């Protein structure tokens, strides 16, 4: 059991997703409940695994017990062990949350299937995070993307078009990725990341590696919606299925960012000839993305679209940390990754709840929502403050580490951009807060379901946990930073 942990974390949600449709035919909610249970088990296992990794060091799991460059390897260090926990938590919360959006439907395939998609999205992301094999990463990338396409397409007629556009551009990204893998394979003859790194450092072919890295940046840039490649993202996040949106918007963009980190620092390594140039390019893209995303977000009144554009800006914080390249900045990036998963997830949980209860998404209709849904508006406010970077929420601390890293490298322009970006964030998030607390009362009537509680408990739990995580990650950030630094030292940054 203990030595099979990395595989089990993935296999449980996978099996549940595979059987979900079949079980839904037997009993209406059986498949759905199985999916939620299995993600919960994965969560428990991933926490156990995190403990193992912290105590005993990185785990290398070899599928089929073949020696390293020949079989597929899972490499778990503390960074991706934490990321696995994050994916599982958001996945579990999303699984719970989305149960509320299909009560009217008696279509068995749809109930079982949409939860199967959430589980498969989790599986894809878990796999992408833990794998140590470049081609295996491609397969998981496709699992993630395909379930993402379908979940976006399930969000109505505009969702279908956004999903189709995402499918086209996402496949281009996957193709570019494969092209990059082909080039690296032509230089090294292996597919294992660690082995690749060893060979590349001894037998470097700088030109091929340069082109391959361009391919990787383009591929992962598209997948995570980095600035010039973000075109698909706002409409896709806006029109995705309401129940699954926290998972899509909160986590899906982060995993390619992590993959890019792996390529930059684990496969290529800092001794690569053109490494500095890549950092400069990524830094420039991040800076532009921060400004662009915030400026576009200011113009939106649809809360979903505003949050989608803000994601363009926020993902740039993460890449900015990679571009600065000191351990403390990279740790800050990862802290922002975890924090932002809960902030953005939380904002989408809250906006989804408002939509569930009152059927509105336009912020101009949000008047007096704070009296009707106090907990939801508390989450909206806390997440918004965290996005701006007000202590003691996690957003402040990740920015602190990013700025500290930038100051250490004497990149004062990055600090200036961080400051400007948070002020731009403040403009549109305070617009939202104003709308929640101060707009005119619109006499909203709950649509359909009237209950004593603010929301059903399956929606309350995600909201409460998001609040706790935003504050908790903020107050106890040093523990996470220490865990992250433990592995960053091992990578050799």
């Amino acid at each position, binding site marked *: 059991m203990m030595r099979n942990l990395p595989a089990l974390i993935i296999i449980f949600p996978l099996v549940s997703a595979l059987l979900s449709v079949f079980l839904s035919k037997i009993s209406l909610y059986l498949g759905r409940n199985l999916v939620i249970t299995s993600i919960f088990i994965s969560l428990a296992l991933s926490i156990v695994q995190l403990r193992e990794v912290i105590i005993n060091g990185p785990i290398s799991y070899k599928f089929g017990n073949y020696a390293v460059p020949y079989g597929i390897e899972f490499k778990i260090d503390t960074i991706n062990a934490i990321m696995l926990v994050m994916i599982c938590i958001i996945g579990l919360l999303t699984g719970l949350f989305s149960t509320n959006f299909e009560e009217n439907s008696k279509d068995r395939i749809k109930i079982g299937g949409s939860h199967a998609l959430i589980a498969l999205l989790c599986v894809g992301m878990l796999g992408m995070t833990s794998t140590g094999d470049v081609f295996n990463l491609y397969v998981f990338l496709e699992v993630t993307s395909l379930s993402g396409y379908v979940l976006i397409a399930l969000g109505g007629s505009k969702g279908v078009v956004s999903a189709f556009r995402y499918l086209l551009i996402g496949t281009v990204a996957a193709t570019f990725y494969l092209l990059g893998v082909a080039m690296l394979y032509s230089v090294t003859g292996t597919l294992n990341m660690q082995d690749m790194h060893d060979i590349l450092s001894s037998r470097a072919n700088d030109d091929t590696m340069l082109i391959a890295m361009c391919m990787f940046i383009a591929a992962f840039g598209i997948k995570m919606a980095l600035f010039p490649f973000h075109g698909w993202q706002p409409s896709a996040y806006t029109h995705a299925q309401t129940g699954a949106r926290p998972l899509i918007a909160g986590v899906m963009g982060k995993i390619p960012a992590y993959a890019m980190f792996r390529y930059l620092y684990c496969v290529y390594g800092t001794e690569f000839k053109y490494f500095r140039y890549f950092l400069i390019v990524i830094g420039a893209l991040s800076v532009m993305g921060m400004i662009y995303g915030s400026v576009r977000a200011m113009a939106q009144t649809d809360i979903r679209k505003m949050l989608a554009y803000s994601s363009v800006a926020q993902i740039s914080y993460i890449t900015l940390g990679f571009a600065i390249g000191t351990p403390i900045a990279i740790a800050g990036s990862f802290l922002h990754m975890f924090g932002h998963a809960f902030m953005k997830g939380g904002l989408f949980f809250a906006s989804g709840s408002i939509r569930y209860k009152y059927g509105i998404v336009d912020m101009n209709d949000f008047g007096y929502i704070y009296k009707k849904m106090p907990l939801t508006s508390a989450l909206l406010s806390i997440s918004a403050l965290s996005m701006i970077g007000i202590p*003691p929420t996690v957003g402040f601390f990740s920015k602190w580490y990013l700025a500290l890293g930038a100051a*250490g490298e004497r990149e004062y322009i990055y600090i200036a951009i961080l400051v400007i970006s948070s002020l731009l964030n403040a403009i549109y998030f*305070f617009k939202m807060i104003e709308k929640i607390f101060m707009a005119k009362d619109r006499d909203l009537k709950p649509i359909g379901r009237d209950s004593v509680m603010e929301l059903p408990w399956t929606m309350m739990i995600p909201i409460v946990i998001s609040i706790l995580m935003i504050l908790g990650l903020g*107050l106890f950030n040093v523990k996470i930073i220490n865990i992250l630094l433990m592995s960053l030292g091992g990578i050799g940054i």
Partner: protein
Amino acid sequence: MNEINICLPLIAISAPLIASILIYILGEHIGKNAREAITFISSAILLISVYSLVPHVLKGEAIEIIFLEIVKGVNFSFNIDAAGMVFACVASTLWVLTSCYSVGYMRGHGEKNQTGYFSAFAICIFATIGLCFSANLITFFIFFEILTIGTYPLVVHYRDEEGRRSGRKYLAYTLISGQIFFASIVIIYMFTGTLEFKAGGFIKPDMLPMPLMLILFIMMVGAGAVKAGLMPLHSWLPAAMVAPTPVSALLHAVAVVKAGAFCTLRVVLYVFGPEAAKACHGAEILSYMAVITIIVSSLIAIRKDNLKARLAFSTVGQLSYIILGISMLTPESSVGAIYHIVAHAFMKITLFMCAGAIFVTAHKKNISEMVGIGRRMPITMGAFTTASVALAGFPFFVGFVSKANIILGAMKINNLLFSMTLVVSALLALTYLMPVVLIGFKKDIINEEFQKKDDANLMMRIPLVITAVISVILGISPNFGLHLYTLAEIAAKSIFG
């Protein structure tokens, strides 16, 4: 140091926080009596715990509390020193009085959104007490930002278009300065490797390259200056006058602007220290800014007819006394500056409470409408007169003690401009406050409305009388009760050695 003494600051800090959360959660369900009861109980707890810390500080005991490592290498910790203690005493005393006054004002005026009001008020006090006790810049900044956010609901209390506009203005100023403050903290941490406040500053003049040091100094002082309303950055403060009067009282006398002044104090004397501040010429620039502010704001105040606006510009000027006192970098002026936090708090809160009482009882906002109001509200106007005289710096009033010390400092560095400024501004203060008193007690023009004696209600009258009396007592005996003057002296001594 026994355990009780460690518990006391914790109680002091957590009491308003718990009160705020309780009010927010229970507020709508339990009614206003319970809400006010919670406020009173927690303010009493705060008052007692802060007061009982004073003897320890006077004895020179260091009270340090470390909670947890908040960012790598820096702890979330409290360190209670004399300067912080002065501010904490003022804030906790005034919270009790302001709560009492708020109850009267809110009931008398029939305000809405009282839950949010009391909750946000308690958050502001929480942040202020946290500011006083913070041991390092990170902790300080956390409470600084909480204060910024916590004040925002108070500014936009009425939820109308005007309130929202001034709320936006307030946020624009404070958030921008806060972010710049943040950036400079990061850079300072990068260069020095520590953020712990140290009397006399932890930055040595040779630690940073000179132009960078000056830029950092301006960036950091800027944050405090915005909150304190130093002249080019002051325009949010009069705009925030749309809020209810207890809020203005809180903003102007207790929490926000004082936090700005306190921030300047910490930055100049505890982060940079006299040597570095002098070496980079930052203090010099700051002091000239303060001089300009003192004169210009007084001149503007004379032209304002709205009583609250006049008081607001008076605040802008008075706060610059503190900044001027700090930036002179002499022990005497520092004592004066720290003591002026106390003095100005009691004087200005009296004035604001009087303005609020007039507004609630007689529904008058403008000075020109107040002819003969002293007849109707003698106690209120009496308190107003006392505070006005004190503000002008008459001997045997509290304003004299602080101003005399600042002038002493100015004389010590032989700067005639500063001394003259202080004297002229005292005259200007008389010019803009005395007309109110004179109009109020005018006898020849008889205003029908003000014939009958009908003073403000008791809940509002008591606090303003108390503050007026205190500003007299402290003027006669600066060390009365809490030895605040001694505390200020201890602080200055620790800074200048």
